[in-house]
């Protein structure tokens, strides 16, 4: 049976390859730091379960220091030229989309098969099935792309490293925020915020609780510029204890729509620099340095309507399914 552990091993080997290739890339300005960063993630993926809590904590501290010590450089592995790529686009046309589509197809198909067929249940573990099936989908798509386009053997690791380098330390952000959420849960931060909010706003009905959660997600995201950072706090404060536990909302629906309410906040804040400020600069807007530049003003009506829509959708769906 394929389990989460197998997926972790595959991922760990990939990061180990990124680490070794970074170390041997003289064109990467921070080759040693990059190699160490990806190498430590490989260690976490391959051996994390044997390190214990404190060992993993020290690993995190090391990753944070390496990641925060300055920008991680972007390696420059040998790749195709723009002309070769255009030739490839003309030659293979829409076939180029096929391996990319195989990934979600295998992930969704594998999840459904594991839930509903004996063969699927035998093949794929019932714990975190979707992610295990996703890993499987990536490997199958990779094999298909290798057979189809016949690139050099090391091309997947090299091209993957190019993309990974451009993501950089941000690759750790969701995992770090989820861990911060665990510390907040242990310290009852959510309950304290929840008590504060409940004192100001009476959560007398499910609708009020839903509205408070969605508005809280959006406002907190405006302040932080990142819905990922708002999510653990607001969900521990209102989403889980009040909307889910007190009023019986479905946790998957509440969290999915709560996150999208946070995205409405992202559309309205200059704190979300890469989405709202970078394009204003790229497009040379005259008001690009204003807090509410042209991009944010163009997004504002959609964001406000969508925030209201999310409140209504959560209220309509979360208590029904």
């Amino acid at each position: 049976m394929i389990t989460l552990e197998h997926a972790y091993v595959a991922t760990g080997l990939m990061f180990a390859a990124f680490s070794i290739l970074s170390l041997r890339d003289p064109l990467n300005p921070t080759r040693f730091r990059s190699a160490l960063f990806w190498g430590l993630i490989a260690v976490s993926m391959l051996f994390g379960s044997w390190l214990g809590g404190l060992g993993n904590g020290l690993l995190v501290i090391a990753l944070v220091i390496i990641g925060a010590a300055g920008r991680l450089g972007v390696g420059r592995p040998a790749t195709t030229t723009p002309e070769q790529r255009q030739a490839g686009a003309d030659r293979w046309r829409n076939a180029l989309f096929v391996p990319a589509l195989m990934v979600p197809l295998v992930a969704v198909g594998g999840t459904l098969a594991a839930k509903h067929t004996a063969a699927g249940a035998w093949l794929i573990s019932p714990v975190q099935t979707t992610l295990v099936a996703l890993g499987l989908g990536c490997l199958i798509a990779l094999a298909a792309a290798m057979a189809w386009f016949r690139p050099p053997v090391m091309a997947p690791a090299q091209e993957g490293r190019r993309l990974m380098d451009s993501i950089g330390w941000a690759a750790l952000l969701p995992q770090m925020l989820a861990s911060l959420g665990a510390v907040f849960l242990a310290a009852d931060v959510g309950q304290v915020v929840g008590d504060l909010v409940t004192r100001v706003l009476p959560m007398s009905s499910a609708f009020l609780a839903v509205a408070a959660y969605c508005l809280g997600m959006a406002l907190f995201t405006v302040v932080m510029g990142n819905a990922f950072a708002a999510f653990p706090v607001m969900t521990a404060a209102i989403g889980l204890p009040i909307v889910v536990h007190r009023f019986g909302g479905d946790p998957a629906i509440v969290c999915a729509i709560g996150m999208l309410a946070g995205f409405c906040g992202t559309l309205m804040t200059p704190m979300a620099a890469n989405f709202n400020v970078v394009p204003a600069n790229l497009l040379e807007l005259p008001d690009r340095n204003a807090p509410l530049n042209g991009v944010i003003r163009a997004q504002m009506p959609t964001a406000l309507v969508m925030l209201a829509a999310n409140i209504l959708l959560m209220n309509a769906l979360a208590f029904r399914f």
Partner: protein
Amino acid sequence: MLVLLGIAVVVAGFVARINPLVVILVAAVVTGVLAAVGPGVDARALTAAAIDTIRRFGEAFNDNRYFHITWLVLPVIGLLERAGLQERARDLVMQVRAATAGRLMLVYLVVRQATAALGLTSLGGHPQMVRPLIAPMAEGAAETEHGALPDRARFRIRSMAAATDNVGLFFGEDIFIAIGSIVLIVGFLEQAGVRVEALHVSLWAIPTAIVAFLVHGARLMLFDRAVRRDMAKIEAEELGR
């Protein structure tokens, strides 16, 4: 109440633009230590609380390794890019012969949202698509319709092109199971003792995605009218002068 300082650290850190990894780790330690503060607690107990927090953070970090499985898709995407994926996407957009700026951006909204829902978030984006392609094509369509554009109309079109990319991405990507926010939700709930399947979470992003398409799509349908109004206003000002 003291534990709220942990949130204050997060907010202050993000506002001060300190590297978020540092901000998060410091906020965790501050929260864990302050949760232990009480009458009769000495420095040694607080140090123990700090170490305990790092241990708890490490455990949670290990439990949340799921997220990195999603990076297995990068070698596939990289290989396809190497073979010309982005060029092919560009060619497809170029083939669209939409007569007006609003309609062209509507087509882009469809493409952006649909590809993001399939996990192809890197096919769009401001540096890759909006600046080199979508904004100039939308401006070109408006110029064909109205002649030379005044600045007000030009910047309105550019802003809307960037906004359309963001809206399509934000309300499309959550349908894909392997995107960061979905994995964060699954990991957070697991820490809280609630087990949900990633596929289940991503399915419930679909209703919002449909509404977002209708709302922003309607705005784009009305967008050409706004550009026409800008043009009329400029003409009226010139007549008045």
